[in-house]
């Protein structure tokens, strides 16, 4: 996606809208494909959380890096990962970004700075730290973003990374998607400390934002990332957001109250963005055209994936190590 900076505010918002809708429609498609048995394994959908990566990625360029977690589709797409490769990967085809070896929890494209979704809660944090260290050591103004959930707050490695990032003033953005849930448990039963207080303990500026308001996320992220590029040291951006679907597809969410489930639609970042576009006087047809274009693009990606060959076992075996030269 890697959107060009748009100067006109309406164009900017349309671009953010398109970014979010791309993730949404891709995931809605995955949801259906999963239900139909065309997607194997576990998939964790980020439906309802799209504003976070789209808002953040608006300030990122190809030299910037991001590392993600198990709920990484949005992070990857917003960073500009190829949609064909994305679907093909999750559907387990040879044309997948990872040639079908990683699947949903490992979509990656290091060539554009997407250092991978991750199946290990918290593991993206030190990887991002190292990436930020590389940016700083190489003297570029690139930044590194770690996406993680509120559940990951309990992992010790977060503490290690907050400390080192602060100590060395690394250009790292700690981007927390706080959706209130850690799998099947509300995070407030798992975490005694808030990220705000933890960040404060390490003297890292913490910004909290309504993670379902893409404009707010964009603005907050832009400020954080500008600070990183100036060499001001790490920032924490905590985005309050909403997990709409189960922890993974197939999770019936019995543990959530009917009231909570009923209220989810109201928080939808895409509906909010659309309302805002309408306020700004954008024509409904123009907005609908975006959805249609995405739909065609997604269907094309699905069709391409369906038509792609199964991954090659021999190629996989040959890729455990780098082939010797010569």
């Amino acid at each position, binding site marked *: 996606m890697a959107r060009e900076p748009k100067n006109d505010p309406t164009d900017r918002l349309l671009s953010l809208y398109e970014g979010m809708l791309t993730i949404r429609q891709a995931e809605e498609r995955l949801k259906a494909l999963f239900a139909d048995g065309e997607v*194997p*394994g*576990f998939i964790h959908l980020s439906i309802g959380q799209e504003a976070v990566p789209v808002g953040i990625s608006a300030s990122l360029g190809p030299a910037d890096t991001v590392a993600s977690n198990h709920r990484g589709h949005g992070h990857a797409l917003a960073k500009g990962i190829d949609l064909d490769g994305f679907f093909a990967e999750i559907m*387990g*085809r040879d044309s*997948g970004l*990872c040639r*079908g*070896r*990683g*699947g*949903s*929890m*490992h979509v990656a494209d290091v060539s554009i700075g997407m250092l991978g979704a*991750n*199946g*290990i*809660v*918290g593991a993206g944090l030190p990887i991002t730290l190292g990436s930020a260290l590389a940016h700083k050591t190489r003297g570029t103004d690139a930044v590194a973003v770690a996406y993680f959930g509120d*559940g*990951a707050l*309990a*992992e*010790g490695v977060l503490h290690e990374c907050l400390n080192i990032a602060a100590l060395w003033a690394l250009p790292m953005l700690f981007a927390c998607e706080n959706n209130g849930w*850690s*799998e*099947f*448990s509300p995070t407030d*039963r*798992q*975490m005694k400390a808030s990220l705000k207080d933890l960040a404060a303990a390490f003297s890292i500026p913490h910004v909290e934002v309504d993670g379902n308001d893409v404009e707010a996320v964009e603005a907050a992220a832009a400020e954080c990332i500008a600070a990183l590029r100036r060499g001001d040291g790490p920032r924490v951006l905590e985005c309050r957001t909403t997990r709409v679907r189960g922890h993974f597809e197939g999770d019936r969410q019995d*543990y959530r109250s009917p009231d909570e489930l009923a209220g989810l639609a109201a928080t939808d970042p895409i509906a909010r963005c659309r309302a805002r576009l309408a306020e700004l006087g954008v024509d409904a047809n123009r907005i609908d055209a975006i959805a249609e274009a995405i739909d065609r693009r997604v269907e094309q990606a699905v069709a391409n994936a369906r038509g792609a060959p*199964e*991954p090659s*076992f021999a190629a*996989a*075996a040959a890729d*455990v190590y780098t082939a010797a030269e010569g």
Partner: protein
Amino acid sequence: MVETRYGKAINQALHDALAADPSVILFGEDVGEAGGPFKATRGLQEAFGAERVRDTPISEAAIAGMAVGAALSGLKPVAEIMFMDFVTLAMDQLVNQAAKARFMFGGRNSVPMVLRTPHGGGLSAGPQHSQCLEAWLAHIPGLKVVCPATPADAYGLLRAAIDDPDPVVVVENKALYALKGEIDDSPAAVPIGRARIARPGRDATVVTYGAALHTALQAADALAGDGVDVEVIDLRSLQPWDEAAVLASLSRTHRLVVLHEAVEAFGIGAEIAARMADVGFDELDAPIVRVGAPFMPVPFAGALEKAYLPAAADVVAAVRRTLE
């Protein structure tokens, strides 16, 4: 005898252990209210209360360490690490603390803890949710490691592990949770360290454990059709493992295949083969053949994972090689 599922047998073992001994407690991520990621702990918090069946934060190092400390202070903790891939986060406490405390403190105390964790592929769970890392643990003096292949053993080995005064890692196989099998009405503990002849035979021995037992039995059936009579040994325990049982079988068949789902290189099978190439050397009429996963991470796509996992055909080919 009743029929039950592997996952249900685990649940029953935990239930019976909690009921039998107030010092048994359970903890892990989502093991309480949610009943566990694979439902193995379903209903236990309801039955025994949130003090004895605790949901923890996502803190694997602390989970393992808590088990050590609780075991040193009068409890018998049964901790869960949700996927065996995540024991990578708990190795210090398992290896440097739990395994060594008895020896290192002069043999005056023990560490009666259990760590349950599922390994194995077959669910397209990808490279970080499918690994079989039991060889690491078997290499560590002070740890015991068991790996049940059937519902009856899932019950019996877990009860034995909880009764055991030393730290025991119970490695379950994700693909087996739904497996049905017979279990006694009042099942007993299965002694740690003793293998089982899952199928007697005269022509070659296949030693295996965990989910691969079923692959071995399939292969044995196929070979039986061709008049080859394979003995299948289910190790059940990996540390200690039943060297005498393997040697006895080899002494009857003179041909040995070792099979597991874990990566072949430096896996459990290496030790068994190496040991038999020493103490069983005179009994060997053929090369020892190992069947295990190839040297690559567990791939995601169905086609890749299927090609990755050791199959009955591989075992058949291996047995044939020993008969050449």
